[in-house]
């Protein structure tokens, strides 16, 4: 049962011409106007159409309104209430959730006898509801559109009703012309309009039909109205498989049909559009044939093989629509509406090869985007550095993680095994800039790190000495000193870094080592004169500049020099110090790996690094002009790894020792954010409030790390060393790298294993299950096989073998795990774990001095602890910076509800 409408349809159709579809006279009510989608889209439609929405509904929301640029749209509880308020309308747009759509349509039809159009945007409407809505509208003479459509729009009338054809800027796509569009895809309705403009075609009326099982306003009704629309000279039909909507279509005007979805014949369920599922005889092939028969062509139009007639053309690629239409219209003697706008060729707006060499044909250059996008992209260039989302970072980290399978920890996605092959200075830079410096960068890092290592006459050294004197552990000794390296002590350098950042952030400097024109920053630098230059001659700065120039060239260092020359002044030491760190951090900043605030804070971290290493050496090793006996001039050019070794043991390392020390430090860098040291650092940052990064005290972050190490965490490396000392103190071992040591390791190991077995059995008999365990053997993950291996230990062992670096203590450990198995103290051959590697490297370094009586067991313990602090300083620096950038204020606290009171 349906009302009689226009044409000879077996159902009601009320639209006679496309010109009537969306007119200036239409008055619209939007159901669920304050919903998420509607509240975004409706104001744009309302403004574009000159204010065509009279009111909206939302149950319980009467009295509210939806603001738009041309006034507020009132909201009522119901249509009835809106009508009682005196509003009149002929169209309804439905944004209700699927279960409410049918009722909303029923309400509209019942309440308003003047209703002529209903446009349903909602997707996933049940088929049952669709057929009921249709029946209601048919019986009452209402044209229904959708569901899951984007409504209708008219470029001539400057009106759009329902949905968002043309997006947030309809004028960009809905350009006045002579082509009507009917599309199963809402997105393609707009996309086709954009494509048409590249061939000079504009649009009249655009209909997004939706592609549910029920297409309420179909192609046949559309073509009937097309024929009666004087403005439209042709139409585009975009169709997908499923349904007989396009079967036996007829029009007086040329058409281009695009049928897409041959592959959908494979589908047994809908994917994408709900109605785009072919039944029998209505798949894409069938639809192509319907159109080919209608057009009288024997193929699909492609640019290579253009097949078309006066009636039209069939394409299967929307990119071919503009050309096909032009050819068809030429045959009909009709020219395009305007000059073509742009083209559809590939235009890359953003691209990066990440340093790879792509084949030429794939290496598309980045081109300027069309307006207004080019302006937006240009504005993006003003966004320098990374921007991280803030979150609760208590047990999370954007810097470190431990792989639960391999147990290998990573820092900035690089495993500690790989990091252990880098120098200390390289890793210290890496922790903060997320990339390792090149050889030039390492030289710069050594210069500044060594430059501040000597604490002679500084309060930091006095504090450290006082703590040492008072019997504090190495972590407290260093923490006491670090507490003095407050922000004020590095403020000038940070100001200088900030100045360089501001001067260069928008310059095209990607790599600081490249020669670039610095005339613009030089012109703008006047206001930073006090920050970067001094009128007096700082001798130290002169020497520093000399060293820096020898190392290579950096745009920032050159700039400071040129600026001084321009102003006839001298660079300050802080300016050069800052220029070094800006050089080290610049590519990471430009690559959006670090934030601007990290770049500015780098000098602060640098001073703390130097302080921690410096105060580890007792006061007597700090001389006025040197450190551990090395003159400053020489010190600044040596590896900071070497300096750290000297601070620790008071002597120069051999080449092999330096390598082993480097490996040792690398292995300790991190064990993920859950470790106590990392938690200490993160807690310290969290308490300062990282949401205001300027307030975070970096030195306090390091104090958090240092105070969260101790005899159990950090100092326990000594446990294994003490165990080994116990095993070897009565032997004649002079040097741990002596291959001809003449000691029967297997025998010592087996004897010990037997003793241990007896001890273990005895303890079990007396019920003590907490008996002493042998340090550094076995592992909770790497266990259970006949012979077990800790892959991290295996990696280092192999590395040392390749480098021909024997270690008798490590060999002993391997004999020990076998001995334990032979003595039946273990069920299988335990692994030698990674902690053993750390212990054996350390003990090897100190063994000669120990044997010579230069070091006691206490000193070994201290050295062991301090070594841990050096390595872990790298990981914790990364945690401090990461938490500063990503964390929230006080995010490491535990909710009271999760805390437990123990009686």
């Amino acid at each position, binding site marked *: 049962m349906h009302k009689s409408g226009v044409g000879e349809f077996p159902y009601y159709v009320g639209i006679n011409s496309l010109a009537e579809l969306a007119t200036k006279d239409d008055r619209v009510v939007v159901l669920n106007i304050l919903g998420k989608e509607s509240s975004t889209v409706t104001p744009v439609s309302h403004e574009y159409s000159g204010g065509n929405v009279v009111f909206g509904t939302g149950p319980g929301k009467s009295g509210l309104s939806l603001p738009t640029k041309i006034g507020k749209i009132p909201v009522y509880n119901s249509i009835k209430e809106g009508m009682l308020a005196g509003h009149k309308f002929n169209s309804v747009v439905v944004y209700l959730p699927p279960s409410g759509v049918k009722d909303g349509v029923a309400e509209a039809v019942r309440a308003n006898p003047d209703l002529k159009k209903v446009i349903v945007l909602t997707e996933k409407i049940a088929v049952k509801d669709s*057929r009921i809505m249709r029946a209601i509208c048919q019986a009452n003479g209402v044209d229904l559109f959708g569901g899951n459509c984007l409504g209708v729009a008219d470029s001539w009338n400057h009106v759009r009703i329902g949905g968002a054809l043309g997006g947030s800027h309809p004028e960009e796509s809905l350009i006045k012309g002579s082509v009507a569009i009917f599309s199963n895809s809402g997105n393609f309705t707009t996309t086709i309009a954009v494509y048409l403009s590249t061939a000079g075609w504009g649009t009249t009326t655009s209909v997004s039909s939706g592609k549910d*099982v029920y297409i309420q306003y179909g192609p046949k009704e559309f073509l009937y109205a097309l024929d009666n629309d004087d403005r439209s000279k042709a139409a585009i039909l975009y169709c997908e498989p499923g349904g007989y909507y396009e079967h036996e279509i007829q029009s007086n005007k040329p058409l281009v049909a695009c049928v897409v979805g041959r592959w959908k014949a494979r589908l*047994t369920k809908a994917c994408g559009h709900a109605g785009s599922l072919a039944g029998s005889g209505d798949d894409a092939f069938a639809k192509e044939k319907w159109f080919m028969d209608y057009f009288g062509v024997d193929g699909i139009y492609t640019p290579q093989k253009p097949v078309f007639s006066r009636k039209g053309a069939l394409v299967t690629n929307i990119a071919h629509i503009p050309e096909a239409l032009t050819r068809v219209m030429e045959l009909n003697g009709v020219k395009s509406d305007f000059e073509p706008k742009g083209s559809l060729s590939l235009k890359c707006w953003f691209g990066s090869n990440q340093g790879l060499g792509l084949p030429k044909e794939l290496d598309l250059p980045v081109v300027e985007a069309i307006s207004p996008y080019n302006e937006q992209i240009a504005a993006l260039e003003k966004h320098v550095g990374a921007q991280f989302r803030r979150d609760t970072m208590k047990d999370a980290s954007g810097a470190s993680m431990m792989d639960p399978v391999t147990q290998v920890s990573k820092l900035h996605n690089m495993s500690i095994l790989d990091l252990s092959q880098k120098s200390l200075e390289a890793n210290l830079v890496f922790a903060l800039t997320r990339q390792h410096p090149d050889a030039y960068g390492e030289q710069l890092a050594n210069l500044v790190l060594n430059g501040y290592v000597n604490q002679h006459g500084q309060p930091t050294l006095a504090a450290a000495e006082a703590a040492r004197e008072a019997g504090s552990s190495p972590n407290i000794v260093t923490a006491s000193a670090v507490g003095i390296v407050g922000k004020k002590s590095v403020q000038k350098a940070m100001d200088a870094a900030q100045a360089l950042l501001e001067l260069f952030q928008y310059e095209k400097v990607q790599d600081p080592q490249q020669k670039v024109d610095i005339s613009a920053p030089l012109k703008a630098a006047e206001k930073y004169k006090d920050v970067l230059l001094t009128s007096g001659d700082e001798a130290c700065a002169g020497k520093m500049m000399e060293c820096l120039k020898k190392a290579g060239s950096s745009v920032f260092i050159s700039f400071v020099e040129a600026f001084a020359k321009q102003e006839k002044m001298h660079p300050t030491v802080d300016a050069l110090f800052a220029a070094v760190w800006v050089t080290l951090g610049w590519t990471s900043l430009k690559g959006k790996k670090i934030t601007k605030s990290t770049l500015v804070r780098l000098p602060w971290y640098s001073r703390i690094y130097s302080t921690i290493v410096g105060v580890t050496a007792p006061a007597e090793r700090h001389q006025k002009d040197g450190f551990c006996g090395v003159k400053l001039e020489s010190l600044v050019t040596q590896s900071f790894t070497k300096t750290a070794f000297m601070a620790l043991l008071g002597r120069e390392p051999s080449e092999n020792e330096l390598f082993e020390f480097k490996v040792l430090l690398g292995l300790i860098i991190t064990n993920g954010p859950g470790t106590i040291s990392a938690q200490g650092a993160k807690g310290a940052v969290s308490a300062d409030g990282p949401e205001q990064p300027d307030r975070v005290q970096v030195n306090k972050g390091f104090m958090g790390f240092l105070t969260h190490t101790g005899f159990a965490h950090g100092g326990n490396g000594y446990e294994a060393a003490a165990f080994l000392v116990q095993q070897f103190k009565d032997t004649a071992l002079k040097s741990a790298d002596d291959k001809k040591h003449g000691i029967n390791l297997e025998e010592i190991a087996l004897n010990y294993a037997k003793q241990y077995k007896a001890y273990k059995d005895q303890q079990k008999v007396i019920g003590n299950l907490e008996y002493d365990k042998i340090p550094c053997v076995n592992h909770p993950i790497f266990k259970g096989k006949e012979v077990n291996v800790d892959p991290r230990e295996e990696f280092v062992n192999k590395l040392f073998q390749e480098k021909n670096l024997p270690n008798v203590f490590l060999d002993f450990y391997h004999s020990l795990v076998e001995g334990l198995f032979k003595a039946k103290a273990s069920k299988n051959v335990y692994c030698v774990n990674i902690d053993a590697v750390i212990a054996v490297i350390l003990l090897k370094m100190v063994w000669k001095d120990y044997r010579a009586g230069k070091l006691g067991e206490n000193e070994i313990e201290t050295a062991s602890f301090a070594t841990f602090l050096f390595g872990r300083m790298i990981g914790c620096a990364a945690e401090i910076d990461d938490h500063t950038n990503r964390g929230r204020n006080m995010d490491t606290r535990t909710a009271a509800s999760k805390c437990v009171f123990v009686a």
Partner: protein
Amino acid sequence: MQITGMLWGRKLLDLVEFPHSEVRGPELSVDEIKDMIKRHGEVFIKPLFKGGVGKKGKSGLIGRAKNISEALREKERLYFAEHVVNGYANKSDGVTFEAAVPAEYEVYFSISESTEFRAPTMTITHHGGVDIEELEKSKIKQVPFDPLTGLKAFHVSNALTDLGAPPAIISPLVQNLPRLWDLYNNYGMVQLELNPIRMMGAKGRLTPMACDFKCMFDIDDPAWKRLDLPPHVFASDYSEFEQEINQLRTYQGQSDVFVINDKGSITAPTFGGGANAMVTELLGEAATISSDFGGNPPYEKMNEISKITFNYWLKQSNVLFVIGGKANNTDIYETLRAIADALRDYFQKFGPKPLFVVVGRGGPNLIRGMAYFRDTLDQLGIPYRFFGHDSAMSEVINYALSINDWMKSGGAGEIKQGMGIK
């Protein structure tokens, strides 16, 4: 979501008391089969396929037996039978035993949504038992009817009269067929087909007995859930991946996926039904999945969808291809941010992998979204190319295919090296 065959069909028919032949499942013992043959003279043995698998008869996959040895032989033959439909192999898991219904007349009956009439439509013929497509049009009657009042007795009566059906079958069908509208309308069906309905009984009084059953449910209509059918009935319709994505199915933002090629090497989150149709077609077998994630999905949903998609497909993929036209109301910043964050999560969880990202998109907040994605890719060290809506989608697709070819022929290795992956 389809059901074919009488094992579950009879249970649905019982809901509206529509008569059907005796049907038993694979659990039937030898004695019970013997008893069934004794009572009915003959049984049909049909393989049990999950989901919608038709044309079993034509493929010789319906056995008939008049004695136990024949029945057991057919059971053995058909229990794990393989049936290839549209190039897809379906494996049977069990058989049904269905009583033969001797009859002079076989009727075809269906209700479906007609896109021609745009109304629910009954299709009926008394020349049933064959493929409806093979019958002359004059022998079939299609009757659209008002969904508000439903299928009525007069629809059936008029149609059968118009067809010139034997008077003996009209009355029993008029009495019974309208009940099927209740089944169709109340449980969210979009198609219901009984073929054949065999008219059983003495000449004076015939009873329509449904002997085969097929129906399809509307996934967007929760009414089918009232049937409380066990999930395994629909299990073959969805892969594990699809099932996981389906759990996120709400009306806010689409989440339709379909596995195209589980060995594919381009994973393409696609936005919009149109883009889905086009992209999947042009990518062909290179694609892992076909998807439509359009409809302005909120960040949380898009992020969840991306995580699931990456978990299943990224490992094998050379190219992550994010593609759609010029969006109307989808917030591109939200969708690209959700994808970028999911990609970052993937790298955090599984470590870096060689990948090339190609994006083709337009719409609100485009540049903001692209900038966020770009920054993420820069941080992860992944090479990329982004195109706006002024590049033809088909060209962008071809570019993604070319990148995929390059990745296969050594590009992936170069990226791997560049990322420092061992």
